[in-house]
């Protein structure tokens, strides 16, 4: 099994499955499309598992490497590989794809094949992003992954989807251009290589590094998103169908953060140090400012979207305090946020499917009619508020501990999330779940069915499991994170 091209399989099985689903055609064959999509997602998930079991934790080197010539003239290669930083994201992504296919099972009843195909293809492309070690290959996957997301929002989205897609487009356009320019510059600076690993060794002056860092920053900050380029996210979430929101929150937001660890930190270490104050400041603004903004949201999806931005603030903060506990905390926060935000959006979707409203004011007393659902929702809300014994605690805890060591007041500002995160999440829970039955619509709610129960139980088990025993997640990162720290510590200025 170790000889099998696992990474290629992880990329192409979902894509081919997506094409096969697409081939089932119109909605007459919807049941077939669903089954086929689920099979594709499950197989896709299954092939990522050996990445973990076969992973060698002792080495920071890239593993499961595949190398083929692609465009020889420019030394562009089909170069894949994962290390302790990226490996878990393939598994997370493939797991979330299964969840997403299940989440749309009974809900999506028009253009079923296209819907499922879009998710499968996107899943493959996202796996490509996390395993590409060639700059051009990365860029191709990075940009291509946007297309399915556009389509998902644009076709299955809400009333205002055009504005949301347009806003998203405006934000990402500039970032993509600057990313491309930076990649081309690195191609020349490295003497004609597109290998990301070569770029890690390329020496650059501080001036060059700063410009490249800023170009990366624009590209990645939009994706994360960091304040102040975050306003597309709440709109995109509000318009996206449930599955779209899950993937957007669970995986798409991680791309920018992944870019920081794969590109910015190792390629421009001196600039990273030079500009770390800026990133830390932006991260803290995301945590505090967005925390307050989330508090007053009236739409549940917007609230969770804003809370995602605040949680991603912990990720960027963790990266730029330059310590093992900070970076590993940030990576764990990324994975945990994938599960928790996915679960939160699914929960909102469960309610939306029944009530066709996301407005908090339309709810109240859901626990009276949906007790099983309320228990799950409560759990994920607590995880979102960073309660210990859930995965949400681990990353925040590590980043706060790391931050104390670098600067007490940074940690002070970051730790306000303990209060703000609990305030916005639990205030929403109070208004939505608790209380007397607010209206006839709530009174008529049916509790979750077996499919919804399965999804929620899977996510709940993961969230609690990771909270009680995060060691399996962090131990695969150690070598790679230490290697990354070594990179950051060594100046590239000559």
């Amino acid at each position, binding site marked *: 099994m170790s000889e099998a091209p696992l990474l290629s399989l992880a990329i192409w099985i979902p894509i081919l499955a997506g094409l096969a689903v697409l081939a089932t055609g119109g909605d007459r064959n919807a049941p077939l499309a669903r089954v086929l999509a689920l099979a594709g997602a499950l197989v896709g998930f299954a092939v990522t598992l050996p990445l973990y079991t076969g992973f060698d934790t002792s080495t920071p080197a890239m593993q499961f490497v595949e190398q083929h010539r692609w465009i020889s003239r420019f030394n562009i290669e089909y170069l894949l590989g994962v290390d302790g930083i990226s490996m878990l994201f393939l598994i997370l992504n493939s797991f979330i794809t299964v969840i997403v296919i299940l989440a749309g099972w009974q809900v999506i009843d028009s253009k079923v094949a296209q819907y499922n195909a879009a998710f499968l293809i996107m899943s493959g492309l996202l796996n490509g992003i996390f395993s590409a070690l060639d700059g051009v290959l990365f860029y191709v996957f990075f940009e291509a992954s946007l297309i399915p997301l556009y389509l998902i929002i644009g076709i299955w989205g809400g009333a205002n989807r055009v504005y949301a897609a347009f*806003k998203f487009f*405006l934000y990402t356009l500039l970032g993509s251009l600057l990313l491309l320019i930076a990649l081309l510059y690195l191609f020349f600076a490295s003497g004609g290589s597109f290998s990301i690993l070569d770029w890690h060794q390329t020496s650059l002056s501080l001036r060059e590094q700063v410009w490249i860092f800023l170009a990366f920053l624009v590209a990645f900050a939009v994706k994360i998103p960091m304040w102040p380029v975050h306003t597309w996210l709440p709109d995109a979430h509000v318009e996206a169908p449930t599955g779209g929101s899950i993937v957007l929150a669970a995986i798409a937001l991680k791309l920018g953060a992944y870019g920081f660890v794969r590109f910015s930190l190792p390629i421009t270490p001196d600039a990273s140090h030079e500009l770390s104050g800026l990133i830390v400041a932006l991260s803290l603004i995301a945590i505090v400012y967005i925390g307050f903004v989330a508090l007053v949201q009236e739409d549940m999806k917007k609230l969770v979207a804003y809370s995602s931005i605040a949680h991603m603030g912990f990720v960027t903060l963790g990266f730029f305090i330059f310590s093992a506990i900070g970076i590993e905390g940030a990576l764990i926060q990324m994975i945990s946020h994938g599960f928790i935000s996915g679960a939160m959006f699914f929960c909102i979707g469960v309610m939306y499917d029944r009530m066709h409203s996301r407005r908090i004011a339309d709810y109240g007393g859901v626990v009276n009619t949906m007790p099983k659902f309320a228990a799950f929702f409560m759990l994920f809300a607590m995880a979102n508020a960073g*309660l210990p014994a859930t995965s949400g605690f681990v990353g925040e805890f590590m980043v706060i501990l790391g931050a104390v060591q670098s600067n*007490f007041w940074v940690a002070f500002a970051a730790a306000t999330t303990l209060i703000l995160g609990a305030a916005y999440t639990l205030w929403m829970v109070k208004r939505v779940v608790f209380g007397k039955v607010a209206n006839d619509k709530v009174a008529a709610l049916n509790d979750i069915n077996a499919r919804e129960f399965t999804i929620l139980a899977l996510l709940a088990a993961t969230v609690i499991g990771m909270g009680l025993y995060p060691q399996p997640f962090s131990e695969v990162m150690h070598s790679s994170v230490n290697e990354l720290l070594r990179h950051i510590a060594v100046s590239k200025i000559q």
Partner: protein
Amino acid sequence: MDLKSLSLLAVLAPLAGALVAGLFCRVISRTLAHSAAIGGVATALVASLLIFRQVADGARLNGPVYQWLTSGDYAFEVGFLIDPLTASMMLVVTFVSLMVHIYTIGYMRDDPGYNRFFSYISLFTFSMLMLVMSNNFMQLFFGWEAVGLVSYLLIGFWYTRPSAIFANLKAFLVNRVGDFGFILGIGLVLSACGTLDYAGVFARAPALVGETIALFGTDGEGVSLLTAICVLLFIGAMGKSAQVPLHVWLPDSMEGPTPISALIHAATMVTAGIFMVARMSPLFELSDAALSFVIVIGAVTALFMGFLGIIQNDIKRVVAYSTLSQLGYMTVALGASAYSAAIFHLTTHAFFKALLFLAAGSVIMAMHHEQDIRKMGGLRRYLPITWITSLIGSLALIGTPLFSGFYSKDSIIEAVAASTLPGAGFAYAAIIAGVFVTAFYSFRMFFLVFHGKERFGHDEKAHDAHAAHDEQATHDEHHGLAHGEKPHESPLVVTVPLLLLAIPSLGLGLFVIEPMLFGDWFADAIFVDAEAHPAMRELAEHFHGAGAMALHGLASAPFWLAASGVALAWFLYLKRPELPALLKTRLQPLYVLLENKYYFDRFYETVFAGGARLLGRGLWQGGDVRVIDGVVNGSARLVGWCASLLRFFQSGRIYHYAFTMIFGLLVLMTLTLWVGRV
């Protein structure tokens, strides 16, 4: 069995009970649910007893159970530290918990959430045990937050009541403010010591004396690192143990069912902060500044929360304010370096306060969920067991010699008197005055409930009117006794726990004061720098046995203060019951101040809750919508405007293009020539 297996058994048994009762709460019978929960907790009690015996024989345990996480140079483990302090806490927690479990069978008999309730209280027992048995800060924080979660769930147990779901949110958020300080303290501990294990931290702590941390500016002197750590950790304790100004959640927590008020909001969870500081004695001993902070906060809580107990009319709220005040006493003891006295008072208080709460619950049941003590009176005849156990609890609370509360409270008062710390003088005055206040409010309630005229069941209109204007309609239909109805004593499952709790309330102090305070029971668990803080040593010098202490107590100021408090309560509420109303009008401004609880709630709701919402709205509408989206949409419009300009050139007419080309050529040529000449 060895200590480790016993420890695992002690924590896992209640967890198993909680899981059975919780996960299957909708399918299993009530009997099965409460059997599982009670079985789990009873197992934990037995395990705790066995552990206690082994610890008394000198056995100790400090070791990991599993490795939670490693990162960089740090390793975080889940592990147990079993020493006398832990063993004592385990006994208190499991014993009170078991009593409350049994009591619940009677109290929650008619509640549809019966199984869920058992699941929660077993989960609480598990969490609290994890907290006290931890051997490191990380797990401490785990337990800390887990008990907070269960408290949240239980305060909001009757989730359709608006007041309950307001109270639980408030409790969680106020506790989070404390946790905010707590986690920063933990962060400083880790960065200073490189580990979160107690043993490692305590070993490293003496070397930290004199180290500073530059908190305010870079050129300043800096703050003592240990002071910063201790104050931050104590802020966590202030949240959990409800010290001023983070006390506001505890009175509101009475929205929860009475058994959990006894277990969580009186006997165990709220004492977690006290336990934590005692556990951290090797750190706190190194910072006089932090100890002064602790003693002042405790003194303020002890006295001023006691005042509030005087004017409450809800039976549970009187006991709640009494709890706040007694937590203040424990905190004062911590500040005076009398950690063992604090733990001693924690223990006796756990028994007599759980007793008082459960007795209050028994009264509430008898009164069909009427909680207003003005509508009670003369219940002694109908509830003899509740009456006598309440009397024992109240006497213990006010510090009557020979009762358990006397020994613990008197030790605290003596220790504070001997303390030389800045702030100790104020603290002494406050807790001495507090003795009178405690006696007064305790017996005001006792007399109003059990003695005097029967004021219940003779006014049918009062019942309806009360229910109508009271938002907090209870979970069952009854509210007060109907006309002519008489209260009945509660069933055995209720009265037996009362009797079992009355025993330690009465006699525990007499037997344990000597080993606990002056023996070597806590010798290796609590560290006191006797040179710097000699209070406990002086106490030991003056101690000549528990009996002598009680005799001496009869002649001391606290006893007479307490006696006069009781006498005043008797005079005002039994002898001349028309006087309190008169006093109320005479002292109107003072009454209004107390009625509004010193305006803490209103201040927090306006400034913090209101301010946060206002700020959020401002940042959202002003920052996100107007400025950021303004720029984004503006740039979109700018692109559109540029495009419309360009469109002007794309007219599709050949001569336009030709003209433009010629014009452009001319411009270029002119420029080239001009530039070339320069």
